């Protein structure tokens, strides 16, 4: 279990992280969200022991992060790096060794990752000869070759084409199934929504909201109700709800934002009473909307 408790980090006069807390149970895939400059990368670097927090604590399985615990971590930084002249297989083996793996196990693991990521034909070639997408696959293999207990991925999908993004998503699902705890940051909300079961949204170096998607949705103050057909008579029941406001009218439908505590059964009854209703839908907020709302609160 990873516990990040009120961590703080300053660089001179710049406060990169002022107060971030969250905890992640083993095997959970966790999304760390926030706008540029929110402190995501600094928080990740502190988790990995690259930076030392100025305040607060970070614990892994109940103990402070040590060089021994770091052996069981993997990291894919946002700024990708690779030894251009080193061969693909050698590079993966090198990073495996840096995490304490030894021959012959490391060779077999490297070959497995090469096969899994479709890099077999490039295994003996210098990394500089590979396309950017394939270089990123090599970096993923370097980060995960030692079967880490915790894998931190900072913007793992940036620069990947849709096909390679799908490959990465399936690999992350496999790691999750194998029990690896994953921490991801990404601006691709739909991918995070698909992958992650828990989230923390941070801005200006501090937590805004956090929890499972269900918890985040439960805490969302409004819901969107969509009804069809677009009969003018259907506006009246909405107008009777305090705080309801119409949204952009789509073809053949009416949309309203209503308070989350609205009695939808009663609303449906009221609507049916004034006009024939062919469609009634209560739309949950997407992660994207929750994110924008959380960030909006901060910037407001």
């Amino acid at each position, binding site marked *: 279990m990873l516990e990040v408790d009120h961590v703080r980090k300053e660089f001179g006069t710049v406060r990169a992280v002022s107060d971030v807390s969250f905890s992640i149970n083993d095997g959970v895939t966790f999304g760390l969200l926030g706008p540029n400059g929110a402190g995501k990368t600094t928080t990740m670097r502190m988790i*990995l022991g690259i930076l030392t927090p100025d305040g607060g604590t970070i614990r892994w399985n109940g103990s402070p992060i040590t*060089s021994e615990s770091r052996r069981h971590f993997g990291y894919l*930084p946002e700024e990708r*790096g690779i*030894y251009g002249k080193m061969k693909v297989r050698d590079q993966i083996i090198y990073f495996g060794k840096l995490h304490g793996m030894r021959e012959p196990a490391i060779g077999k693991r490297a070959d497995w990752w090469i096969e899994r990521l479709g890099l077999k034909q490039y295994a003996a070639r210098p990394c500089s000869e590979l396309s950017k997408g394939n270089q990123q696959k090599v970096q993923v293999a370097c*980060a995960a070759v030692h079967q880490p207990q915790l894998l931190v991925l900072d913007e793992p999908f940036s620069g990947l084409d849709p096909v390679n993004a799908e490959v990465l998503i399936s690999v992350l699902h496999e790691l999750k199934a194998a029990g690896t705890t994953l921490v991801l940051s990404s601006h691709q909300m739909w991918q995070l929504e698909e992958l992650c079961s828990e989230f923390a949204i941070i801005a200006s170096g501090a937590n805004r909201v956090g929890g499972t998607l269900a918890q985040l949705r439960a805490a969302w103050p409004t819901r969107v109700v969509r009804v069809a057909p677009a009969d003018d008579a259907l506006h009246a029941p909405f107008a009777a709800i305090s705080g309801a406001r119409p949204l952009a009218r789509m073809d053949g439908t009416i949309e309203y934002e209503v308070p989350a505590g609205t009695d939808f059964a009663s609303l449906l009854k009221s609507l049916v009473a004034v006009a024939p209703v062919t469609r009634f839908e209560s739309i949950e907020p997407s992660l994207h909307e929750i994110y924008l709302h959380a960030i909006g609160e901060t910037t407001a």
Partner: protein
Amino acid sequence: MINDLGTVFAAELQRRITSRPFLIGLLIGVLGIMFITRMPALLDKAFTGSNAIVLVGDAKLLDRVKPLLAKDYKIKGELPMQTIDEHTLNAHHASSAFVFTEQGTKLALTVFSHDPGSVDNKDINRMLTPLLLQDALHKSTADVAALTAMPIAIKPVASKFANANEAFAARAVAYTLIFFLYMLILLNSQIVMSSVAEEKTTRIAELLVASVNPSALLAGKILAGATLALLQMVIWIVAAVLTGSPGAGSGAAPSGDNIFSLAGLFNVITPAVLIGFLVFFAIGMLQVSTVFAAFASLINRTEDLGSVSGPLVIPVIAALFIAMGALGSPDAPFAVITSFVPFLAPFVMFARIAVSNVPLWQIAGSLAVNLAALYVIAIIAGRIYRVGMLLYGRTPKLSQIWSVLRTSS
């Protein structure tokens, strides 16, 4: 930590040993050493005409003069009295013609030369003095030799050498080894610097410091650099010995006289000199390359390497010159003081050890000061490196580096 260091060391060694800069440096070094060790013979052949002369005059007179001049001149021919012109000199491949005549009872010399500036009157006079004395005193050659032979005994006082030849050979070897020190430390420190800069600029640094302790990473790189330098040095010395040994080429001096021959080296490289060289090489390499690596972590573009390494090279060049001076005056106060100063000591103290009996307390003191300095340098460099490797954007100012050092302590 030890495992990480070993992994980084092995990978770094493997990458660097096959790198183009190392192989080119090694090859150029070997060629340079071969040239230097063969240079005396080559120069001798190349400039053989400058001391080539023809003797002109009465045959009996020339018979007396010839043995006295033969030590310093190549005598290309003996001619009867005649008019000397350019054709005479060219025909005998000589630069000068020494025309001897007798004016009364005195010997007289007229020199016809392509290069009058190369003729040293006093030197010629000194060479011919036995002949002049013989004529003036009407004594035989043996008598004059007996008269002018003054017994000279050289008694070494607090000197590590038994005679002048040994001292000269030791200085020559020390001179060469100091030059090796300079080349190896500078070349390999710059290779370490390039390696750090490569990892910084290719953004692989963050991945590395997430996987391994930055101190182990830095230490692995520096130790790999030192090992490569040692390997390079062994290859260079072997090259020097092979090209300096008899049979390596015509014109080579006999093995005992040639300091680059195996026999010559064993004459002057005592265990103390060898240990001193290795110890101070290690200290110098570690001091210089650690500083180079720390500063390399601050740059953002490999193009900036030159501007950063420029000022760092200055102490190494200064150390080279001071060490050269210390070979001539190993006990001069300036040499003694600088043999304690970090960055200078590896060169200066080794120079002093090579050519004099340095008191043991001075060697121990210098080692203590420089090992302590190395410890402090490693701590400061480690902090700069740890922060510098993640620092992107503009190259930080000195005040920012100082701030980083204070906050990361």
